[in-house]
């Protein structure tokens, strides 16, 4: 890595000029982001901008064709899967829901990443599973089958699976995109309170009002590039909404309530 981009101490996650090409099609053309310990970072951008691909690349799930991704200063390509699983948890947008698997079993599977091959579960592992169930507030229905859960419950279980890894960073790809208002508020509150407990969180979010309400830092991705990063109020300006989303809209904030005022049908 070049000295110029190396900060004084390693951050949980730094990505510089990341490029990703899938099947010959360039999806991400140069994305840069930094995640500081204990903050909640929201990646926002229009559909097809490359948000999910960027997040998968920094997670080590997608090999970048260029650029640098470093976890605590260590290049992602030098980290083996199990090492990476100790540094970050990844919550996909929607996981398949296998029949005959209970919530506790699913969370146990999340913990299995920390075990040696053929190694047995220790007391510490069982404690980690209980903690994950409690922190994600899914302990109440731990014995229920995944197939019986609502969308919001399932999303919290997915977060619990990630928490069982006890990695310091949790990454979630559009955790609220399929949820109703109440479930969205619940999941958003959960992610914010986990951040308060010391977890570092990186989210892909569509809902700008939600991002503005919960994120410390917003990263805007447009057409495969990161075009802005900073506190929501500074980044999500009407000018930027017009430029990136081609929409006449403005964010407002009042008493912890955020709203996106959109000229749905253009000028009247």
């Amino acid at each position, binding site marked *: 890595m070049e000295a110029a981009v190396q900060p004084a101490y390693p951050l949980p996650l730094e990505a510089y000029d990341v490029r990703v090409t899938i*099947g010959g099609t360039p999806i991400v053309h140069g994305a840069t982001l930094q995640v500081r310990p204990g903050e909640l970072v929201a990646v926002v951008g229009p559909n097809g901008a490359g948000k999910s691909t960027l997040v998968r690349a920094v997670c080590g799930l997608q090999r970048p064709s260029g650029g640098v991704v470093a976890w605590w200063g260590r290049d992602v390509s030098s980290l083996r899967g199990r090492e990476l699983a100790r540094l970050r948890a990844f919550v*996909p947008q929607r996981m398949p829901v296998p029949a005959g698997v209970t919530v506790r*079993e699913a969370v146990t*599977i999340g913990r299995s990443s920390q075990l040696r091959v053929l190694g047995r579960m220790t007391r510490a592992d069982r404690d980690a599973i209980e903690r994950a169930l409690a922190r994600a507030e899914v302990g109440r229905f731990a014995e229920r089958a995944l197939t019986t859960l609502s969308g919001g419950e399932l999303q919290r279980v997915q977060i619990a699976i990630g928490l069982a890894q006890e990695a310091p960073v949790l990454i979630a790809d559009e955790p609220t995109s399929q949820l109703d208002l109440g479930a969205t508020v619940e999941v958003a509150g959960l992610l914010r309170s986990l951040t308060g407990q010391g977890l570092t969180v990186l989210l892909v979010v569509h809902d700008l009002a939600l991002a503005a309400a919960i994120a410390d830092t917003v990263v805007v991705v447009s057409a495969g590039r990161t075009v802005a990063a900073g506190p929501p109020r500074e980044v999500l300006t009407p000018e930027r909404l017009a430029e990136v989303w081609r929409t006449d809209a403005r964010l407002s904030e009042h008493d912890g309530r955020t709203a996106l005022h959109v000229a749905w049908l253009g000028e009247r």
Partner: protein
Amino acid sequence: MTRRLIVLAILIALLVGAAIAELALGAVKVPPGEVLDILFGNGKAGPNHQIVESLRLPRTVEALVVGAALGVAGAILQGALANPLASPDVIGVTGGAGFGAILIIVLFPEKIALLPIGALFFGLLAAAMVFLFAWTGRNRGSIAKVVLAGIAMLSLFTAGTTGLLAAFPEKAPSAIFFLAGGLTSSGWESLDTTWPYFLAGAILVLFLIRPLDRLALGDDVAASLGSRPQLIRLGAAVAAALLAAASAAIAGLLAFLGLVVPHVVRMAGRTSSQTFVVPASALGGAALLAAGDTLARTVRAPIELPVGPFMVILGVPVFLWLLRRAL
């Protein structure tokens, strides 16, 4: 948890019962007490001793090993391919093994001893070709690619088998026993040549149980937990190919067992956790094949019929009963 322990206990009881029946019943009936005496080395020398020890014991062990192997092969393939219809058929093993066996029967009838080797070789060859096509190029190791390559290979080898039988119709009767799936009382010979394949498959399966559970939550979750989905699928397919090809070498084509037994144990245990499904499928497959073979040897004794159809007749009612009660 207790439910699973109860299911495992029932399966063990069924397995022990089926094994004793397999040893005791047949053209000559040996009382179960005497069977146990003979097994534990307390039996009197005599014809019964001879029958149990050198004819029925190897056959019973074959039934248990093959049943367990096919049950496990089905369980890990269904898990790896996230497909309830997966069985050793879909990785080409069954088609290849059938072709290899019929090739020996038709072209080298004087070297019938080579039949297990032919089945094993072509079973593994067909699987290797599936791996070659499914694990290269774009989307390598994706479920659709594996299944489609497997079905293509199954069709190809089945066409070869049908072609051979059509060209040499007089050989068809001797081929039926293999195609229907049957055990023989030929001593320890076939296990002597195939045990390394069973052992290698079983060891591979041990390492796959936990990764397969991760894969049940999707490729993304498995990958983020540090597993490599396409590698897990390849490992599962290789293990299943070893187990199923070795099984075909001993007992012919018994595809049904690998398809149904894992479903039965999942429904009975109400879980798809591989830590339960894999061992339970081994026990259930072993019990079903031993019970089926006992029937096959006794209904028209002294004529021995192929076990395949009997196993299906025993297995389908249990399967349908559980299916009706499942979610």
